[in-house]
């Protein structure tokens, strides 16, 4: 039967094709895989022009692989890049979560 969303059991196969390593800091750290999207986004526009060419970093992961009570501002590594969690939003049936990240500079 075709459903509207990926079920939890479908996700590992999807991640195996496109996923990169996601390591969420902790003791012990949580290691999983996620799909990363870098989406260009102009911010801080003034008079409709002259903003900053920012990039929205979205890491899609399997919700059941995330540690419980994961809070925003938590540190993680995505494909070897140090990031800080800005926000987390579940998608569809909740089997996937989009992690909005910023680089730690």
């Amino acid at each position, binding site marked *: 039967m075709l459903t509207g969303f990926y079920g939890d059991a479908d996700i590992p196969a999807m991640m195996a094709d496109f996923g990169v390593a996601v390591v969420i800091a902790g003791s012990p750290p949580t290691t999983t895989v996620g799909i990363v999207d870098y989406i260009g986004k102009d911010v801080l*526009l003034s008079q409709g*022009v002259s903003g900053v060419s920012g*990039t929205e*970093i979205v890491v899609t992961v399997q919700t059941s692989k995330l540690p419980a009570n994961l809070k925003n501002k938590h540190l993680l590594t995505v494909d070897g890049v140090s990031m800080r969690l800005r926000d987390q939003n579940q998608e569809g049936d909740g089997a996937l979560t989009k992690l909005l990240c*910023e680089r730690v500079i």
Partner: protein
Amino acid sequence: MTASVRSQIVSAAIAAINASPPVGVPTADDTRLESYTAGELPAISVFEIREEAETEKEGRWSYFVKRTFTLRVEVRIAATVALAARATMDPLYVWIGQQLGGAQFGGLAEDCYEALLEWQYAAEDQPYTLLQIDFRVLYSTIKTDPTRTQ
């Protein structure tokens, strides 16, 4: 053709900001329309916002127009946390305030002062901060000629 007094004031303001700025203060742009990449920050842009005017009869040579012009200076920075944003922004703001506050731009204006400051923030691949500083510039021109001061 001679530039209007307002145009001359904008040019003079940009020249003042760019006159031997301290280390870390970028060269100000004149009315930048393109977005800045993160690598171009910090950045300063200067442009006109609005002007109000009223006619006066007490002109020395003829009727004149008394003008209140809003000059906007925008500062954009990339910073990682709120405290760093404040620490990075403040020296830029101080320099701009020192260069433009009370300026008469070689006799073109009667006064120039900070009228409104607004901060905006954005969080994407890294945090960004925008400070808009609106300067009110008081000046006058001959009613029949915007290139000549009273």
